[in-house]
């Protein structure tokens, strides 16, 4: 297992994709955090002038929509990494498998270690340190962009608040779990382009839409908590969706288990499909 792990670590380390993903995620989250913080500040200022409390949802959410206060603004902005950026670690994880098929290096990989389950397991573990780097880049980008913007407009950054710190820190765990989901997804859908397109479509379009739709009905609202994106946000403990009053989240530990379950189920499916078939 150690040898297989070292091999997989080297495979990721010797390509550029992991730090490119970290770089792009950091820059993207920084930009989004600046825009989001700016929008909240603008909304608060306008509401102040009108003499009424600002509502975060803009009419989209239900009754639970939070009033825009310092805590809501800070948590909403600081959790953008897990709410919007989880596509990056997911792609990182998927690439760990799909590049092997795209460049047909799966052949030498399985020649070096014919125990295919071991190879897949090693990939799962090897992706973690790189996922941590990508996650940190995203979280740091989010917090820096958000805090600097808030500070510039003399709004409280709340970075000293232990609860806020916990929310920020737990995003790293959520994003790392997303990388594991990515490995599982890549092992099920080995076509690299297809895997990235489906991941993008699901995380950026399908799931947000599903969450809004499911939240509209009492019967389905509970189900929306178990969507992978919602589970990821549950780990952080808050998100833009919650502040908007769209849906409640699971407990932190429940969220972690649900996201981990997605990863495990996908990896198992990949094991009995892709990794059982003839190679080449």
């Amino acid at each position: 297992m150690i040898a297989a792990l070292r091999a997989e670590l080297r495979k990721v380390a010797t390509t550029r994709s992991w730090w490119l993903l970290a770089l792009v995620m950091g820059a993207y989250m920084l930009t989004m955090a600046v825009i989001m913080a700016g929008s909240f500040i603008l909304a608060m200022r306008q509401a102040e002038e009108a003499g009424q409390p600002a509502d975060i949802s803009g009419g989209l959410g239900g009754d639970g929509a939070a009033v825009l206060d310092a805590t809501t603004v800070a948590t909403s902005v600081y959790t953008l990494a897990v709410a919007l950026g989880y596509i990056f670690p997911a792609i990182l994880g998927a690439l760990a498998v799909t590049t092997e098929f795209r460049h047909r290096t799966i052949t030498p990989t399985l020649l070096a270690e014919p125990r295919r389950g071991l190879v897949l397991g090693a990939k799962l573990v090897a992706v973690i340190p790189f996922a941590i780097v990508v996650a940190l880049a995203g979280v740091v980008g989010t917090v820096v962009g958000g805090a600097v913007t808030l500070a510039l407009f003399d709004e409280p950054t709340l970075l000293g608040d232990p609860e806020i710190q916990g929310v920020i820190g737990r995003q790293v765990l959520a994003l790392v779990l997303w990388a594991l989901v990515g490995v599982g997804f890549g092992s099920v859908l080995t076509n690299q382009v297809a895997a990235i397109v489906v991941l993008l479509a699901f995380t950026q379009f399908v799931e947000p839409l599903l969450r809004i739709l499911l939240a509209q009905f009492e019967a389905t609202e509970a189900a929306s908590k178990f969507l992978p994106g919602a589970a990821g946000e549950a780990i952080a403990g808050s998100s833009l969706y919650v502040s908007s009053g769209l849906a409640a989240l699971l407990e932190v530990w429940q969220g972690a288990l649900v996201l981990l379950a997605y990863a495990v189920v996908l990896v198992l499916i990949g094991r009995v499909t892709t990794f059982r078939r003839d190679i080449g």
Partner: protein
Amino acid sequence: MVDVPVAPVPSPSADPSPESALDPAEGVVVVTGLTKRFGPVLAVDDLTFAVQPGRVTGFLGPNGAGKTTTLRLLLGLARPNAGTATIGGRPYADRRQPARHVGAALEASSFHPGRTARDHLRAYAPQLGVPDRRADEVLAQVGLADAAERRVGGFSTGMRQRLALAAALLGDPQVLLLDEPANGLDPEGIAWLRQFLRWLAAQGRTVLVSSHVLSEVEQTVDDVVIIARGRLVHASSLAGLEALARPAVRIVSPDATGLASLVDVQGWAPVTRFAGPGEATVFDHRAAEVGAAAFARGLELHELATADTSLEALFLQLTADPEPGMPPPPVQPFAPLPGQGVVP
């Protein structure tokens, strides 16, 4: 394997590798009744052959004959529908660190273009249990020492072939299975590869080299295994294959009856099956004898030619697609190529 200079390959006598360290029984490759079906296509059809250590064996057949599939079955990358494939008596995947025993180069494109040559090899070093410096050793062995830090994406086909070979050598394996290793190599590279493979075999290693062109490996191989349409058509030493190539003379006369009676009188065993009337191919005789006999009978000849008895012609005939409804052609050194006029 240490202290191996870059090309030119040292002569076998200067070989530092201890031959006695290799157990010949561990080097025998055995394929028995191997069958692999892809949907309606029988890619490998009840294939049986053995490959001996200390020799270079050519694994030959036209494109699509099932060579690569056979190698993949040998390496545990694909599962056969029937039959077994073992190396040293065991299936590939049953070994721990199998790449230390069997080195394979299946395609010259199994690289991540963004990785350097050295990084590509080092990615596999931990699982093979070899030190990282082994990567530089094998790169030097295949003449890629200067390209170690270059990204593989910028490599020529020939360089990729060499890197694939380096990857196969990484575990210093006793058995080498190489799929079309000469593809994309320049003539100099091919000459180098020949020497290199001979050198490896001289150390007692088993070297199996696939090719769709016999002439490419003719000067390198000791043994040949020829397959076509997934089936074995010939397996022997190269000398055994050469023995099949009998001398033959092709004659053409405007007087078909005269020609037939000449053949009759002389007691020749002509082959006219593939020829039109007035044509014959005479085996085991020289052009001078055939010409003299025709002259003595006053038979007008329009053509008198020594038939192509090259191994390549024989190979083409052995592996040729049989005509629909016809049995496979008998082993003869002379047959029309596909597309030429054939009169059954």
